[in-house]
């Protein structure tokens, strides 16, 4: 029997090796998880010493395993059986809450990239069940939990102040802390979360007088009935970003270009970061719509502001500016000589698209990836507007805050 035991063990390891090494990877995985899968890492001394090589190798094995989506579904079933909802700070609630987000069209209604007439935001399909008596899964609500960290919020303000002290006085500096969805979801959810406006006001109160706060929170709050945030993703929509753009315009004293100067496009079928983990079939049947707004007043840009994949099923939040890059630089045909420098996380991506036509030059820096000096950029562009954009959970992330500080 001992031999059989060893054969079973050896056989199972061999099966695992076949799944990982020999069988083709799951073509559905990329769509299923809504992200790019890890490619085979190249061994270099540098990648080995930085521990990246083995880290990426592990992810490569997992990402490219045969039947990955099946294993993920299995893991999800087990997670549910164990009462686990979602890891980390993500939470998912299934409840009969409407919350004003409504239901978006089903996959069956996916029409690809369509040019639609201007709408106020989201669509509600009248054919779907709705209300207290309906199947509770139809009202799946996803949101990022926000738990404040006062010490780090203070540090965030200090880091911004350190920039103010070192950049040329001629640079106008702005701080926009983007709220996340749960702030606008009503009392029931407020109890399980910290006050976002509390943190934003704390940060603003600590900012150097030379930094102008941008009140995106109230700009969104005043339009809480709109499709400001994706239901299934942790980001805001282009409409959420549009409201924040108005808040910036008010703070910067510029005339915002209104939405009626834009053509609206819609990409259906987007399942965002928060819902991917659930793989709930009803959630999958009620995806978000990504609305894109294309400027229609003759202004042109030196780069495409939208990155639309050929297969629209792959479209995700990265359609805005093509996702996060260490540094992006582009110009518009608006030759007013103004430059905007944005130091940001991914929340800024749709916002920059609204901001861009107001400036001749736009420089976008992501301190999580950029290895150059942000101060140097400001020295070269000493008349620029400098805007810091981070979503509010960033003010609880020590590593990220120090990355911003280190990016000076």
């Amino acid at each position, binding site marked *: *029997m001992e031999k*059989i035991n060893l054969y079973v063990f050896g056989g199972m390891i061999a099966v695992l090796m076949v799944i990982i090494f020999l069988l083709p990877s799951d073509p559905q995985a990329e769509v299923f998880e809504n992200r790019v899968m890890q490619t085979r890492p190249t061994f270099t001394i540098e990648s080995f010493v930085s521990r990246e090589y*083995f880290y990426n190798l592990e992810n490569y094995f*997992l990402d490219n395993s045969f039947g990955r989506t099946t294993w993920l*579904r299995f893991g*999800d079933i087990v997670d549910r059986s164990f*009462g686990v909802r979602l*890891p980390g700070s993500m939470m998912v609630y299934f409840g009969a809450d409407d919350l004003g987000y409504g239901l978006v069209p089903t996959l069956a209604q996916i029409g690809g990239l369509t040019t639609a007439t201007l709408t106020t935001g989201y669509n509600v399909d009248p054919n779907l069940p709705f209300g207290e008596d309906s199947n509770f899964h139809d009202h799946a609500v996803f949101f990022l939990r926000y738990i404040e960290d006062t010490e780090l919020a203070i540090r965030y303000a200090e880091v911004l102040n350190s920039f103010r002290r070192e950049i040329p006085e001629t640079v106008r500096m702005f701080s926009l802390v983007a709220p996340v969805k749960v702030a606008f979801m009503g009392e029931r959810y407020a*109890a*399980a979360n910290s006050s976002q406006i509390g943190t934003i006001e704390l940060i603003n109160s600590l900012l150097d007088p030379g930094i102008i706060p941008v009140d995106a929170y109230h700009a969104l709050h005043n339009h809480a009935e709109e499709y400001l945030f994706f239901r299934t993703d942790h980001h805001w929509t282009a409409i959420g970003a549009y409201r924040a753009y108005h808040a910036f315009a008010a703070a910067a004293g510029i005339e915002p270009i209104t939405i009626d100067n834009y053509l609206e496009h819609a990409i259906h079928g987007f399942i965002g970061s928060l819902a991917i983990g659930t793989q709930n079939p009803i959630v999958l049947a009620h995806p978000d719509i990504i609305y894109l707004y294309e400027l229609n007043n003759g202004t042109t840009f030196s780069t495409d502001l939208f990155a639309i994949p050929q297969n629209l099923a792959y479209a995700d939040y990265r359609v805005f500016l093509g996702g996060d890059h260490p540094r992006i630089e582009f110009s518009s045909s608006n030759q007013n000589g103004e430059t905007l420098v944005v130091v940001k996380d991914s929340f800024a991506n749709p916002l920059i698209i609204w901001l861009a036509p107001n400036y001749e030059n736009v420089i976008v820096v992501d301190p999580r990836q950029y290895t150059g000096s942000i101060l140097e950029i400001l020295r070269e562009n000493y008349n620029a507007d400098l805007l810091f954009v981070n979503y509010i959970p960033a003010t609880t992330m020590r590593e990220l805050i120090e990355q911003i500080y280190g990016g000076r």
Partner: protein
Amino acid sequence: MVFSSMTFLVLFLPIFMAVYFAVPAKYLNVRNFVLLISSLIFYAAGEPVWVVLIIFSSAVDCLLGILIEKHRGKRIATVMLVISLCASLGLLVLFKYSEFLLGIIGINITFAPALPIGISFYTFQTMSYIIDVYRGRVAAQKSPLKFLTYVSMFPQLVAGPIIAYIDVQHMLSKRESTLAGVSQGVTRFVMGLGKKVIFANHAGAIATQLLDTSAATSSTVGVWLGITMFFFQIYFDFSGYSDMAIGLGKIVGFDFKENFHYPYESKSITDFWRRWHISLGMFFRNYVYIPLGGNRKRQLLNIMIIWALTGLWHGASFNFILWGLYFGVILVIEKYYLKGILTRIHAAFAHVYVLFVVMFGWLIFYFTDLGQFLAMTGHFFGLGGQITDHLAIELFLANLWVLPIFAIFSTQIPIKVFNYLKGEMPVSEPVLNFTILAFSFMLLIGQSFTTFIYFRF
């Protein structure tokens, strides 16, 4: 590299076993060499820079061991011992405690290099060796190959158990991998993998949701459920890792001592600490407590020193010291006041007492932030102003059936059932292994990557 990673299961382990067993058993030195090189690769995958440290530190201790033996009984041997211990403790202090100690005297620096994985384990092994050579309990190991193999052996390198040299010295020169031994090792490894992947990860996911949260939104039910889940997570995680280490050791012919003996079955805290992380307790008993005078003089002080050190070993933070001292105080109280009572009362009451004390201990252990700890302690004792919250109730109801399963698998019942089945139907062993492996592999691919808790220490 962790045992529950794909890199280990589909790459490292098959290659290692193929090469190791390709070497005929009579060439044990060659097998040792294969084990050594594999261990260094295993370590370097996670610690590419500090692998140098383990080689250097082992080389120094190997040399000092030989010199101590040569001059045993003379003052020079004591000097060598002190040098070796200072070097080992110096490394630990440098990497693990320097920020903490400087912080106490008001100097705040950020010490860039992260704590090298496993340093708390392998420095204790080399110290046990040097002290035993000095005392004449073991002969110095003359072969650097064998010594480095002992220190760096991958099954127990990164998260224990702490193997005293005296317990494996003969196996470095003479051991065999029998069919029965390899089979037992495989079963033990598989059981450990299951504990980690099936139980610990899930308990951990729920504990995190309930404990890594604002005290303002938490509640008594939330903290109790969270800490109960952590109670199971840390046991399944750490004892699962020890099972895998012992199993892998067995496959290559080593018999490591047990590190856990169903600690949650204990009827007193004294009993608990004889069953939890046994190798650490033995180290402190043999190499600190007894040399300090043990039971013979200043016993109370000795107990408190040992427990402060036990706490400190777990991390450079006040909560770990507090956790150690908390158990020190409980053990003293048990020794002088509770011992008789605990043996007289019904076993069920003794169990409840142990579970409560241990549970509160994990609460101290979990929170490194004092403010958060105090706030959560308020909830723990029902003084937080909120008895229950939405999330806690939801998770409690979802886990009603899970908690008894975790509880049963923390006891000897499953292993007794398994041994009975194995006796009646031998095929149940491979069937069980197949089931656990299939389940674990599917979960491993279908879960995000997780590391073991004890890698932090």
